[in-house]
């Protein structure tokens, strides 16, 4: 059982590195979600503005 330390080291490093990559992916996901929220907000603002300007036009007709 002499080289158990090496075996343990090898396996742990494998799992640590993969875990770090998963964390990396996780953080990218958070950034994407933030960007999505920003775009949704702008989309909503745009729809409101479009609605406001079109209803404004029809009022000026009458």
């Amino acid at each position, binding site marked *: 059982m002499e*080289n*158990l330390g090496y*075996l343990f080291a*090898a396996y742990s490093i*494998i799992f640590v590195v993969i875990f770090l990559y998963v964390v990396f*992916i996780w953080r990218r996901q958070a950034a*994407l979600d933030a960007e999505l929220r920003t*775009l949704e907000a702008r989309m909503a603002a*745009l729809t409101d503005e479009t609605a406001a300007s079109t209803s404004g036009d029809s009022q000026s007709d009458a």
Partner: protein
Amino acid sequence: MNSFAIRNGLGYVTLALMIAALFMVFDYVPPEAEQGIAQLIFYFHVPLAWVAFASFGIVAIAGIFYLWLGDQLWDDLGYAAAETGMVFCTLMIVAGSIWAKPIWGTWWTWDSRLTTTFILWLMYVGYLMLRASADDTPQVARFGAVIGIVAALDVPIVIASVRLWRTIHPAVLVTKQGGHGLEDPRMVATLLVCLAAFTAFWAWLLMLRFSQLRTRTRLGALAVRIAFADAALSDSK
């Protein structure tokens, strides 16, 4: 079945295979007589190598499709494959080094397999540095595709030359690693299960990162359309 289901399914399959693999390595397979317990690293080392090379193949094939069809989807796939491949290639080299120390008494040896994988690792580094150092334009994506294709085409020649190099002048420590000497069928079975487990693991990570890059691409396109709509609206005021 949509891609979400496939991805999640693959995740569970990976988990199951990994547990099976760990069990087989630690409880089932007999350790090799000469090398003792450190030899067990071999059961992870070999699948890691296979996955590292396979991933680079995907980078190249995705590059070909990207240059041919121009769809950003292929570049996203290539980039995801480069990242995941790099992770597994790094692990392969680290595991190989940790294996080398107790078995051969040195942290590194220029035997043909480790050398070839190290070259592959350098190619990954080059690709990722190229993509990281420049903005994400279609032109840079084309550059990446060309590099991926050219490097992958080179790999067989690298393998041949390194093998020749080491046959004519063998490394100081002759390697005993590799697929030879797997007499016990339990060893073969364990190796196959580990191969399956790591392939599944890699495929799952690849799908994860790939769908994330797809989302980023689509968000980018959406942002452009919103910007246009925004501009059009303020023009009409």
